């Protein structure tokens, strides 16, 4: 599995599409509202899936399916500590969950201003 991380609007998905030869139908955009389509090889906005799990009371985000080839996530853990309790919890859980994902990943790439940097 390849893991792509970076701030919002940095061009992570554009990078991943090119680097891992992904087509639109390969990509599932996670939301806080619904279960992801795990049959797709690329999950983007994985941090939203973390929020979905928090709301459901599970830690399923630690179980990354075998067929998942690319995980893309927004780095949401460098900013200000949020006042809202749920967002605060989400921020911290995202840090743990995405660190675990990066640990399992074959490669980790951070995208900054549209430019990739291999971290692992």
């Amino acid at each position, binding site marked *: 599995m390849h893991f792509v991380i970076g701030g919002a*609007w940095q061009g992570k998905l554009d990078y991943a599409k090119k680097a891992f030869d992904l087509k639109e139908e390969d990509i599932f955009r996670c939301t806080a509202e619904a279960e992801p389509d795990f049959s797709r090889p690329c999950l983007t906005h994985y941090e939203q899936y973390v929020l979905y799990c928090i709301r459901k009371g599970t830690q399923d985000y630690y179980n990354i399916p075998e067929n998942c080839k690319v995980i893309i996530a927004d780095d949401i853990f460098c900013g200000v500590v*949020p006042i809202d309790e749920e967002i605060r919890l989400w921020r911290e859980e995202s840090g743990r969950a995405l660190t675990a994902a990066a640990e399992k990943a074959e490669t980790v790439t951070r995208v*900054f*201003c*549209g430019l990739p940097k291999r971290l692992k």
Partner: protein
Amino acid sequence: MKILFSGGCKNGKSTLAEDCAVALSRSGGGLYYIATMIPHDDEDELRIKRHLHNRAGKGFTTLEQGVNLPDCVTKENAKGSFLLDSVTALLTNEMYHDGIYEPAAPDKVVKDLLDFAAKVENAVFVSDFIYADADRYNEFTEEYREGLARCDKALAEICDTVAEVCTGCITLYKGELPL
């Protein structure tokens, strides 16, 4: 040569950018600081004072250009080295003009930045990394963040060197520094 620096606030971006601009200006053509901040309160005045103090003696000629960036380029100075500090302030000025919100500002600023970069010999751009928050802000702020990201990406594409500055340490994403 064109360079883009981004990173967190008060992490040493400006000082590094100044040093790079000074180094680039050794080939001649003059050294120019584009002052983008339009002061709104005492805090801004203090910030400007600090920047002026830090720049003193480095040989910059200050050009006041809070909006319409390419207007500061003339036939006389185009061969020079310019420091634009910061893209963030430039976008703010264009996006929130006299209390009026201008949604088309990011497109205009991207165009202005690319026009400006094409006209001048050397330029160092400073931006701010404001993309790693968990909280979502009001729609104006979110559009501002997205707009600044567009400016950064457009600059990163055309710049020879792109680096992130974190607590004074440099991570290069592209090219080399002229130091």
